[in-house]
C-alpha cells in the first residue's frame, strides 16, 4: 500500500510540474530554461558519475533493472537539449558529394523531390527536406513534389509552410504551380516510378488539391523524367531510395541524390560508390551536415549535442555490460 502511495504521489507531482511549466511559459514567467555553462558541466559530471555507479553495481553482480535503464536514457538524452554548446559537424565525403551535385543545379532547373516517409522518421528527414528546398527556393530552382507514401505530401506541406514563412523566401513571392507544386500521393509503389518513366500525367492526373496536371504551368511541359534536371529522394524504407535507383536512375536516367533515415542508409552505399546515387545524407547527422553545408543551422544541428550524448550513453552501456560479462557471466556460463 505504501509503495502504491509513492507512485500516486510521483504521478501527481509530475502532472503538476507539467501544468506549472506550461502555464508558466504562457504567462511568461520564463523565456526558456537553457543551462548556463557551469550547469552544463555539472550535468555532464553527474551523468558520468552515475554511469560509473552503474558500472560498480554491475561489477558487483547487481545489474540495473530494465526500467532503471529506461529512466536513465530518458534523462541522459533530454538534459543535453538544455545545453548551449556549439559544435562543428563533421562533413562526410558522401554528404559533400551530394552538396557538390546540388551546386551544379542551375537556376530555373526543375527538381523532383519525392517525400517517401511518414511522421516517425520526420526528426531525421524533415530537416533535410527543409534544407534542400530552402536551397532550391533561394536559387530560383523549381520544385516538383510527389510522395510514394500517403503521408509524404503532408510532410511536404509542413516543410513548405515553414519555409514560405521565412523572410528571405517570402520576399521572393513564390507562386504555387509556377515555382513549386505538390502533385500529391499515388499508390503503386515502384510501379508509380515505372509509369512516370513514360508519362507523369497518367500517374498524377492532378495535384493534391485536384488541379489538373495541364493547368499547372510548372509541369505542363514535363512529360517524363527527361524533363527533370535533378531529383532528391527523402526515404524511410519501402518504397524509397532503392526503388528510385533501380527504376528512376538505372532505367530512365534520372540524376538523383538522397536523404535517408540512418537505418537504411548503410544499404545505399554501394549505389553511391557506383555513381547510381550522387551522394547521400544519413539520419540526423546527415541532416546536420546539409544544414552546415547550406549554412543555415536548424533542427539537425540543434540536436547534435543531445545525439552525441545518446551515442556516448549507448557505448558506455555496452562497455559496462561487457565488463560485467567478462568478470562474471562468462565464468557462470562455463560452469
Amino acid at each position, binding site marked *: 500500500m505504501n509503495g502504491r502511495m509513492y507512485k500516486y504521489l510521483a504521478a501527481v507531482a509530475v502532472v503538476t510540474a507539467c501544468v506549472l511549466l506550461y502555464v508558466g511559459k504562457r504567462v511568461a514567467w520564463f523565456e526558456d530554461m537553457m543551462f548556463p555553462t557551469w550547469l552544463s558541466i555539472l550535468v555532464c559530471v553527474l551523468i558520468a558519475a552515475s554511469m560509473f555507479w552503474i558500472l560498480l553495481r554491475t561489477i558487483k553482480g547487481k545489474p540495473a533493472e*530494465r526500467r532503471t535503464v529506461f529512466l536513465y536514457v530518458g534523462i541522459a538524452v533530454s538534459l543535453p537539449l538544455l545545453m548551449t554548446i556549439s559544435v562543428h559537424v563533421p562533413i562526410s565525403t558522401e554528404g559533400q558529394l551530394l552538396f557538390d551535385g546540388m551546386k551544379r543545379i542551375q*537556376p*530555373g*532547373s526543375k527538381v523532383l523531390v519525392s517525400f517517401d516517409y511518414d511522421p516517425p522518421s520526420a526528426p531525421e528527414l524533415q530537416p533535410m527536406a527543409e534544407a534542400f528546398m530552402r536551397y532550391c527556393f533561394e536559387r530560383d530552382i523549381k520544385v516538383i513534389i510527389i510522395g510514394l507514401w500517403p503521408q509524404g505530401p503532408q510532410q511536404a506541406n509542413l516543410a513548405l509552410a515553414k519555409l514560405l514563412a521565412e523572410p528571405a523566401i517570402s520576399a521572393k513571392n513564390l507562386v504555387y504551380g509556377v515555382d513549386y507544386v505538390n502533385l500529391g500521393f499515388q499508390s503503386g509503389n515502384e510501379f508509380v516510378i515505372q509509369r512516370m518513366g513514360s508519362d507523369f500525367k497518367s500517374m498524377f492526373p492532378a495535384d493534391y488539391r485536384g488541379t489538373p496536371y495541364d493547368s499547372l504551368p510548372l509541369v505542363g511541359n514535363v512529360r*517524363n523524367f*527527361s*524533363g527533370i534536371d535533378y531529383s532528391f529522394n527523402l526515404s524511410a524504407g519501402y518504397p524509397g531510395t532503392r526503388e528510385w535507383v533501380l527504376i528512376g536512375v*538505372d*532505367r530512365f536516367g534520372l540524376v538523383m541524390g538522397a536523404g535517408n533515415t540512418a537505418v537504411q542508409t548503410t*544499404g545505399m552505399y554501394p549505389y553511391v560508390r557506383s555513381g547510381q546515387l550522387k551522394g547521400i545524407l544519413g539520419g540526423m547527422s546527415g541532416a546536420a551536415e546539409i544544414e552546415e553545408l547550406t549554412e543555415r543551422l536548424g533542427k539537425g544541428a540543434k540536436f547534435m549535442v543531445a545525439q552525441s550524448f545518446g551515442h556516448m550513453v549507448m557505448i558506455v552501456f555496452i562497455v559496462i555490460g561487457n565488463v560485467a560479462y567478462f568478470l562474471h557471466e562468462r565464468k557462470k556460463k562455463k560452469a
Partner: protein
Amino acid sequence: MTRPATGCKSRTRMLWVAAIGLSVFLATPAISHSQTDTSSNRLLRDTIPPAPVTSLLASDRKYDNGEAIDLTWVPSIDDQLLHGKITAYQIFRSDNGGEFKKVGDAIPGDNQFSDESVSYGHSYVYYVVALTAGGRAESIRTASLIAEREWINYNRKYLFLIGFIIAGSVVYFIETARRGKKLFIRRIAGLEAVDEAIGRATEMGRPILFISGTQDMDNVQTIAGITILGHVARTIADYDTKIRMPVSRSLVMTAARETIKTSYLAAGRPDAYSDDMVNYVTDEQFGFVAAVNGIMVREKPATCFYLGAFFAESLIMAETGYSIGAIQIAGTAMPTQLPFFVVACDFTLIGEELFAASAYLSNEPKQLGSLKGQDVGKAIALAMMIIGTIAVTVGQAWDVEFMNNIAHWLNSAFKTN
C-alpha cells in the same frame, strides 16, 4: 525577329556580339570588383539581340518505340561569354510540315532537349530560340526527321545473355533435384548447434521457445522458419522435450501446428502432440513482444529459436532471452536486425544461410534448385570480378593492350544502358 536568321545576317550579328563580348570580357575585372551592373550595361544587355544557338542537331532516340527525338546544340555565344544574358531557350517544332509550336524549354547552359511527345510516323522539324530579357534569336531549322521504332534493345544483349544463363540454371537444377539427384550444400554452422541446443533443454528439463518471425506466411523467411521448425520438432519428439511457440498470425499458427503434427507422426509419437504447443497471441507488434516476454520470464525456456522475418521486436526478445540465460539461435534475412542477433545470440544464420538451412533440411527441389541456380549467378559474378579486376589493373598500370581490351569488354557487357 520572327523569321529564322539567315546565314549571312547571323554571321554579322555573331561578329557584333563577339566584339561586345570581348570588350566586356576584357572589362570584367572592373565589373566583378564593383559587383554591380551599371544601368547602361543592363541596357546594352537587354536590347542587343543574342546570338542563336548553333550546330542544332535532331536525332532519333535509338532502341525505342519511335516516340522520342533528341536535340543537341551548342549554346548561344552569349550564354558562354556574357553569363546571365540568356534567360532561357525555347524549343519549337513543326509536326508534318504544320505550324511551329513550342514543345519545351531549356535553362541557360543546357545543350540538349528530349522531345518525348513524338507520334510514330510523323515527320518533325525543330528550331531553338535563345531568349534574353528583351530579345530573341532563332536557330536554323533541323532537317525533317521521322522517329523509328526498333524491335530489340541491343544495348541490353549481354544482360539478356547472362540473365538467361542464370535463369536457365535455376530451372535446370530444380528439374535435377526433382529427378531425385542429390545436390550438395555446404555445412552450415548454426544448423549443427540446433541439435546441441535441443539436447541442453532436454537435460535441463525446460521447454524450447520457437518464434518464426512476426510476418505472415507470404514471407519466404517465415516459410524457411517453419521448415526448420519441422526439423526441430522431429528431434523434440525423439527427446520428448516441451516446445512453446507463440505466433502473431493466424495462418502461421495453422501451418506451424500442421508441421509439428507431421513431425510427431514421423517420429512415431502422434499421441504426444497437442495443439497447445502453438498459440496465437496477437497481430500487433508490441503486444506480441509483451506476451512473448511474459512467457520467457515465467517458463524460463532453456533454448530460444528466432527464425524468420523480424523487425524492432528482435532485440527486445533477444534481451529477455539473454537475461534468463537461454541458449539463443537466430536466423533472419532482415539486414537491420541481423546485427542485434549477432551480438545477443549464440548462433546466427546470416541472411541467405537461413534459406540454405531451410533448403538443406527440407530437401525440397524448389528450394535446393534455386539455391544452386543462385550459386551459378554468384560464380559468374565472382569470376567476372577476379578476371575484370586483374585485367583492368594490369592493363592500366602497365598499359597492356590485351588486358585493357578484356576489361573494356567486361565493363561494356555489364553496363545496362
